[in-house]
């Protein structure tokens, strides 16, 4: 039920962001969604791609430092309050969230939010028990047509 997200370390200087994107483009790999966490000193580029194993190999060949992190995709109603109701449940269950970002694609009429939880397995169990729709990779790629 977890997605494999790629994290790439970037120095905070011009050209560093386009480098991994260029590598993936050349390998014919489509980026489904991404998020960039930045500090004054450096950035961490987070990517969701379908062919994550191949992507990791290509990026490392090009000299990038890459991590794989397990993240969780959750469907929420694509309307005002859609995200908020899920967050309430997460907070009520005392689940620790490291970060979140949104998918660029919709799943039908739902929005998809990517979560990094401190303990993804426990979070999935708890959230599913509360009726939150956690969407795994197979279903996800199918619904977004990728």
């Amino acid at each position, binding site marked *: 039920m977890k997605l494999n997200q790629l994290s790439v370390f970037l120095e905070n200087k011009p050209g560093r962001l386009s480098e991994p994107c260029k590598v993936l483009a050349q390998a014919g790999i489509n980026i489904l969604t991404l998020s960039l*966490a930045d*500090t004054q*000193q450096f950035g*961490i580029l987070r990517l969701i791609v379908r062919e994550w194993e191949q992507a990791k190999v290509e990026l490392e060949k090009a000299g990038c*430092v890459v*991590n794989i992190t397990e993240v969780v995709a959750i469907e929420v109603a694509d309307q005002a309050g859609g995200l908020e109701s899920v967050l309430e449940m997460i907070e009520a269950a005392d689940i620790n969230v490291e970060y979140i970002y949104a998918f660029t694609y919709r799943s039908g009429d739902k929005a998809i939010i990517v979560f990094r939880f401190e303990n993804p397995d426990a979070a999935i169990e708890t959230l599913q028990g509360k009726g939150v729709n956690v969407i795994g990779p197979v279903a996800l790629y199918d619904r977004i047509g990728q």
Partner: protein
Amino acid sequence: MKEAAKGQAPTFHPVSAPDYLPAEQLWQLQFSRLSAIVARAYERVGLFRQRMDERGLTPADVTSLADIAKLPFTVKTDLRDTYPFGLFASEMKDVVRLHASSGTTGKPIVVAYTQADVDVWASVMVRTFAACGLGRGDIIQNSYGYGLFTGGLGAHYGAEALGATVIPTSGGNTERQIMVMKDFGVTALCCTPSYFLHIVDRAAEMGIDLKELPIRAGIFGAEPWTEPMRERVEQASGVKAYDIYGLSEIIGPGVASECAEQSGLHIFEDHFYPEIIDPTSGEPLEDGQEGELVLTTLSKWAMPMIRYRTRDITYIIPERCGCGRTVRRIRRINRRSDDMFIIRGVNVFPSQIEEALLRVEGTLPHYQIILTREQGLDRMEIQVEVTAAVFSDRVRAMEDLQRNLSHSIEQILGIRSKVTLVEPHTLKRSEGKAKRLIDKRDL
């Protein structure tokens, strides 16, 4: 004594007499002192005795100055290995002063002086100041650090013995230093060259032009600096910038000094016998050939140093100096034979940086040390390549890593530095020895 005009050297100072000894007399003086100090070290310093025995040598084998080449070397690790007092030749009751300088692994190097040693130290500092054109009537501000460091007290006792008016400001509090310089009519300042540039900048910010003040000489040591730097200093301040040389293991400041010619540093070789050796083979070289400077203390009673390898690279200038001194000159020193560098007056080895990095991660990443100078102050940046082993998806973890590395370095060196995480393979690799250090300071 008539007051010297700005930039001119005053008349001859009596304590400087040995600077002008005819060669024959100088050699005889050196040889008689050498015999005595070798005998003393042989009798009283265990490590030296042991090394002489290993070579089957006794003090009687030193029958000429040239025979010094038969004697064993002393190296910095000997001082660390015998910490604290293992190289002393005097009993503690005869030691009137102890000083210490930083060692590379945290243990300091301890040096000792009898009253006679302290007096010799003061006399070579008098010769230093006299060579730099100073004398009675000068007002000397001493911004070298007072304390265990030999710079502060070394310069102080010398300036007092010279007959000058001494202001013991020690280091720090730049605005107050400038106020003192201005209000007390200071004519000479003792400090590191980089600190002086900082003073010049700060003074300009305070609206004070050093060229308008009575200060006419700067006595700069404790770190390497070059001709272009001297020109910059002299132009910016109207002060004649003199290079002096010393090291705590030998005595402190006062081993060698420039004169009015500012072309090489005269070694006070009646007290500190110089040799130049090939750093790899240890073989002595001729005057004029570049190599590692080796010094023997001819008159230091509490802690004689026989053939101490300084790790400084220079050569002895064969020609006689225009000032008339017969004690030979060495070309100014701006590099060392090992990797050590100096930042803000502190000796640092890249191995210490490595140790600090290893402490945090357990693995040694590729790193590079970049030294710059901003507004007169040395800054150190350590670029560390991020590896898969240390890379975390969490920003906080990376920031913590950065902070821990910086903290670890500060703990080991006592200097704050900037740690920058960089992408892998961005730091240049080199064949053989890694270029760990990029020194962008315009020394």
